């Protein structure tokens, strides 16, 4: 039996088994769930090699599954994050309803992502893509909150993207009577020029939706924040990377063949940049941690898209590197929020405070990830962003650099808000009962944050495979001059030049933190943020005095003009307009049988009048 089929079998069998086991007992189901993902992961890394190809034909199409060294990188994201999230899920989901349903869709999600990575042809790619869409949709609407709005928005955009992609695939198939990606790469140059322009655009639309690219991102915040956090970590960490994966494919193989590819590249890069800025700005305004992280995800994906779109070797490298890292830290952060939600019951930043002592491990994981997210050395984010800046400057995109730099700087604000809001600040009686999350939740977070630390320190660990993967995409082998590509790396390439300095900074920072904390522990009287006796004035009864309230008021006032024009509104407007139009159109079904009969005669008369035009 082919190993790929075996893995898929494990996934599918596991999914069904889990679902059925749920009927017996939740524990059994959970066990099956974790076991399935673990087994698949282990099997994948043990059994599957890049040469493995499983080919078959279906409905007259030649389809192939097999892994390339490029998709292998993404499989790391998917399986790594997936495994962790799976372990995390068990505790997180304890006590919730319809576990079987959740597990089933979770496994299907992981399965479909692996399927996407393993497909070597467009049709199975599309099939897995759609499985991914609806399985994730199922989980997005799992809790049923404002599902009619969020869920429909998500499925609507996904469908539009997917159908754009399907259209491209169909055209490709009609052009070359094959759906293999390899064939596409070889025969793309023989397509007519309009196809050469339109096909990548269609494909990019499809991928752009999943990667939450600028005008297509509106589904993302809602969907990210409405799914259970255990899944959101996968959702934002791995699932959105599928879009990136596709974009990388398109840019590196198709668009690079276009004679005038720069325009598309520029446009997409700018879209990415704008996405980053807007995502950041929106993230700052959020008071809900989930929303905040969701917008932050959008912003981060903006960087990655920019990198992919620029498409020089360094940019691509940085983009993929950022993808991996984003999976790690954003996965962790969502897990953190999940843990807090689990323990406190809310994720509102203005309500929850001072959890640092109650949930120290969670705090550590959050801290590490936030640092990585903000791009502060020595963690991975810094390396990635550095490389991105470098590549942008290298390809003369100065304004973009400014844009992205602005975004990442502004990003500090929400990073701070997040960290401060949850963990620092005054403690309140309300949260006295809060305890550290269970081990099975903490451990995955810690493992993931450890990895983001590791990659920041030794980026070579992941950069090498990425480099190999890029070679399989047709980039020149960089073995020789790879380490010279960025000024950041040392000569061995496995660490960063600025390492020692950064460590020093880090150490001082940590020291102060610990010092302050210890000092704070002694003899401080804690006043809750709602204690109105602390001041002479008499504020409103339940007004929250925490200065997390209206945290960045001045800043927000400054950026308000930009923020006001939410794309969401336009979409809603268009949607309403369309629905109103549809509502108008359906009035042709007037309910009067006679009117219908008159339609028949009108139709007949039209046919009679135009019969010579219609029928030769």
């Amino acid at each position, binding site marked *: 039996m082919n190993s790929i089929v075996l893995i898929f079998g494990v996934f599918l069998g596991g999914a069904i088994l889990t679902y059925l086991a749920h009927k017996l007992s939740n524990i059994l189901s959970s066990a099956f769930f974790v076991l399935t993902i673990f087994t698949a992961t282990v099997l994948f890394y043990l059994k599957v090699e890049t040469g493995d190809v499983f080919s078959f034909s279906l409905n007259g199409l030649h389809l192939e599954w097999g892994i390339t060294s490029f998709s292998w990188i993404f499989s790391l994201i998917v399986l790594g994050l997936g495994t962790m999230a799976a372990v995390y899920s068990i505790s997180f989901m304890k006590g919730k309803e319809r576990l079987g349903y959740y597990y089933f869709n979770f496994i299907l999600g992981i399965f479909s992502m692996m399927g996407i990575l393993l497909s070597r042809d467009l049709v199975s790619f599309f099939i897995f893509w759609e499985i991914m869409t609806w399985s994730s949709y199922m989980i997005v609407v799992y809790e049923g909150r404002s599902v009619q709005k969020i869920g429909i928005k998500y499925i609507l955009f996904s469908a539009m993207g997917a159908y754009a992609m399907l259209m491209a695939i169909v055209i490709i198939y009609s052009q070359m009577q094959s759906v293999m990606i390899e064939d596409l790469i070889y025969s793309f140059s023989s397509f007519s020029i309009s196809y050469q322009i339109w096909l990548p655009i269609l494909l990019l639309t499809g991928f752009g939706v999943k990667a939450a690219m600028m005008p297509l991102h509106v589904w993302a915040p809602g969907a990210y924040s409405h799914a259970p956090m255990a899944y959101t970590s996968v959702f934002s960490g791995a699932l959105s990377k599928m879009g990136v994966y596709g974009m990388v494919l398109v840019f590196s193989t198709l668009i690079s063949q276009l004679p005038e590819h720069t325009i598309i590249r520029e446009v997409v890069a700018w879209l990415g940049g704008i996405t980053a800025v807007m995502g950041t700005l929106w993230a700052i305004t959020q008071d809900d941690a989930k929303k905040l992280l969701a917008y932050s995800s959008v912003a981060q994906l903006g960087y990655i898209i920019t990198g992919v779109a620029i498409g020089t070797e360094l940019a691509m490298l940085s983009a993929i590197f950022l993808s991996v890292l984003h999976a790690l830290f954003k996965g962790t952060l969502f897990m953190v929020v999940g843990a807090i939600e689990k323990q406190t019951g809310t994720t509102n930043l203005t309500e929850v405070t001072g959890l640092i002592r109650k949930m120290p491990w969670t705090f550590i994981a959050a801290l590490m990830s936030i640092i990585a997210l903000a791009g502060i050395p020595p963690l991975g984010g810094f390396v990635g962003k550095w490389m991105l800046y470098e590549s942008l400057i290298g390809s003369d995109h100065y304004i973009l650099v400014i844009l992205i730099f602005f975004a990442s700087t502004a990003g500090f604000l929400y990073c701070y808000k997040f960290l401060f809001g949850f963990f620092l600040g005054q403690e309140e009686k309300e949260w006295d009962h809060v305890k550290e999350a269970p081990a099975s939740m903490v451990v995955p977070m810690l493992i993931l944050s450890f990895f983001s630390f590791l990659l920041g320190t030794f980026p070579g660990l992941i950069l090498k495979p990425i480099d190999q993967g890029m070679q399989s995409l047709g980039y020149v082998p960089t073995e020789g001059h790879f380490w010279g590509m960025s000024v950041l790396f040392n000569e061995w390439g496995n660490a960063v030049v600025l390492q020692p300095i950064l460590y020093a900074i880090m150490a001082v920072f940590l020291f102060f933190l610990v010092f302050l904390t210890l000092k704070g522990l002694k003899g401080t009287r804690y006043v809750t943020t709602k204690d109105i006796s602390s001041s002479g004035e008499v504020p409103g009864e339940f007004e929250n005095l925490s200065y997390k309230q209206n945290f960045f008021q001045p800043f927000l006032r400054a950026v308000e003009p930009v923020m006001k024009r939410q794309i969401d509104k336009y979409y809603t407007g268009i949607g309403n307009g369309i629905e109103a139009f549809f509502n108008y159109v359906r009035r042709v079904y007037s*309910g*009067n049988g*006679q009117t219908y009969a008159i339609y028949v005669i009108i139709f007949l008369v039209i046919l009679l009048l135009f019969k010579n035009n219609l029928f030769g």
Partner: protein
Amino acid sequence: MDQISFDISIVEYGFFASAILVILVGLYGALVKKSLIKIVIGLSILESGVNLLLITIGYIQGGTAPVFSPQLLKDMPLTLENIKALGNEMVDPVPQALVLTAIVIGFGVTAVALSLVIRLYRHHHTLVIDEIKNLKW
């Protein structure tokens, strides 16, 4: 007295025209009249027009009904030639057979339609079609 030749070549288009007119009148009734029964009447008139048209198509000048009655055969031997000669003077039997079927079917449909009208009246207490549109859009 022998055959009076029933020469109706002058009315060549009379049958066609009146069949078409009847069809149109029936259609008008079905499309414009408000009463359900009127609509059904219109439909049955329509039917009649179509049937007349079909028979008119099958008519052959000077032909007789395609029935080989003894009176017609007049003790002729039953040979292929004789039969063919007789047959050539007969109208086309096929449209007649079709119309027979069509009439019976039309009657069936009318019966069903009228029972529906009764049901509708029982339910809505009116026969005006404009008022019977609970199902729309």
